[in-house]
């Protein structure tokens, strides 16, 4: 994997292109608020695609177009456009209440279970619109896994936690399940710690272990995309470091979108970063560039700690 090196080369080659294309995009897009259009041009998918030539084998995994989101009458997301390349980590940052978690939850339609929510626009997962009426949410969620801020082990044994997803999809053979459990736990770097007590309750694990268990549980369903909602915010520094190492490893196989409060974390684990503010996607780009040379004033203010 040569992603880190790609990462370092990207800023120089990408940023001019992104900026130059801004006026062009403005005409192509619909008439949102006028002052927002330069920002939108930055985030629009076609621009992003131009960064692809560097990333040779990466195609678009998630393609978000003109997404608006409402909790009842309150609009929480405004015209978000974004693409996430395959096998990369995208960090979503921004102050609390900026809509980054809401956005993350639109990607596996987790918001569906909240009454009175509404989505406009399209979100494509490998060219399939996940909000198409023909889409099966259950199938979608088994392809787009999610790890939550608070670890959510089920009050069952470690084994049963991991085997939960495979069992749902009809895997009953004990040997197959055992194999999946071992593989998932190894991927989540938890195997060595729990291999002797798989039948113990998952609630007995430490916070960091629980969170890795939740990651392993997600991996067991064989997802393509993993969404993480501040997965390390409740953990101590050592556990956080382990989770970050894990994310770094997982990137080789999975597309990861991670919400984080912690900008250092975003910088450490992601290749791309998107900055949300007041329900709008202000700026998105390769992480290094966004942190070193943000194009938007609000982004700069946020990453330099002037608010949030």
């Amino acid at each position, binding site marked *: 994997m040569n992603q880190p090196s790609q990462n370092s080369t990207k800023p120089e080659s990408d940023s001019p292109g992104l900026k130059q294309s801004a006026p062009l995009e403005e005409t192509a897009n619909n008439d949102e608020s006028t002052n927002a259009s330069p920002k939108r041009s930055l985030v629009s998918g076609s621009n992003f695609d131009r960064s692809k030539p560097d990333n040779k084998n990466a195609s678009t995994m998630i393609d978000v177009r003109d997404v608006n989101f409402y909790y009842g009458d309150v609009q929480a997301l405004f015209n978000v456009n974004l693409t996430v390349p395959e096998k990369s980590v995208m960090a979503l940052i921004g102050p609390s209440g900026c809509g980054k978690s809401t956005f993350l939850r639109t990607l596996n339609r987790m918001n569906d279970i909240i009454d009175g929510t509404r989505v406009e626009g399209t979100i494509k997962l490998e060219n399939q619109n996940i909000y198409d009426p023909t889409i099966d949410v*259950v*199938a979608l969620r088994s392809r787009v896994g999610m790890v939550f801020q608070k670890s959510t082990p089920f009050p069952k044994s470690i084994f049963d936690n991991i085997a939960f997803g495979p069992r*749902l*999809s*009809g895997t009953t053979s004990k040997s197959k399940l055992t194999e999946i459990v071992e593989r998932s736990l190894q991927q989540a770097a938890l195997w060595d710690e729990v291999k002797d007590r798989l039948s113990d309750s998952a609630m007995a694990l430490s916070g960091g272990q629980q969170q890795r268990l939740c990651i392993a549980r997600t991996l067991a369903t*064989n997802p393509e995309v993993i969404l993480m909602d501040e997965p390390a915010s409740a953990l101590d520094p050592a556990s956080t470091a382990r989770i970050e190492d894990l994310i770094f490893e997982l990137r080789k196989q999975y597309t990861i979108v991670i919400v984080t409060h912690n900008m250092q974390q975003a910088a450490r684990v992601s290749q791309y970063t998107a900055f949300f503010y007041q329900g709008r996607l202000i700026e998105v780009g390769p992480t290094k560039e966004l942190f070193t040379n943000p194009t938007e004033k609000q982004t700069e203010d946020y990453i330099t700690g002037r608010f949030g």
Partner: protein
Amino acid sequence: MSNNRGEFNSKINSRHRTSKLFELFCLSAVLLALVVLCVLLFSVISKAWGWVDVDFLTSHHSRKPEDAGIKAALWGSLWLILLTGLFSIPIGVGAALYLEEYSRKNRLTTFIQVNLSNLAGVPSIVYGILGLTVFARMFDMFPGEQQSVMTISLLITDLSIPLPFGPTLITGAMTLSLLILPVVIISSQESLRSVPPSLRHASLALGATEWQTIRSQVLPAALPGIATGVILSLSRAIGETAPLLMVGAASFITATPGGIDGMGDILTNPGSLLEVPFSKYTCMPMQIYNWVKFAKVEFQEYVTSAGIVVLLGVLLLMNATAVYIRMRFQNKIQW
């Protein structure tokens, strides 16, 4: 991996079907309960049709089904609830205030709390035995065939209190009060708990004493909730039969408590009010139970149904009041 995915998708339809079937199963459980309610109401009302009229409400029991009415029982139930409310509301709310506003969490209050939830689960018939022994018979402390009578002279009239109380209204009311007290206390506590502490702090910070704070801030804020809980408890009491049967509500009686048939009687003879608590009485559920046991089919079916309709009517009225209070005030006060 792709193979696995295909397998998954083939199974997903059957999983959705299971989920839908399960939803239908759960829904039908709820619907079944509602259907039973409808069938119950329908079967009772259809039998009572034509039997519930003004005559039914204003006549006493009679051996002829056509002439039988529920008057004594209706008055008995109303007095019973009035007295029960008189006993249980101040004591219940008082106990809730002590537990929520004054007491600290210590052994005593924890014990009271545990004790309350246990009392709420004691079968009503056990309260009947308690009432029978303590109020109706007073531990047989007053021996002899004759009931002793304690007479207290008041300004306009004498108050005669039979000792022991025997099968009188006051025995029934005290027994029912003990029965519903745990529920009254627990529901009042919940209402008090929903009053935000900031309100208390604000009042205390202005120099009000604890009682002033409770009277002027906490109680008014909690009142709708307390009232709802109290009314629901009282409507439980009005339908109670078993404990009253134990403490000796009369089977058949053709007199209203104190001989009061309406407001006019109270105005012409206010002294009769004092006789009310010590009158023999019957009440609606008792009357219904006794009618059920009658051999005559007319009683078993039609008169009983008519009695049930009146009882359910009174209950409906009380519940509607509770719902009204809840709606009316819930919208006004929002924390």
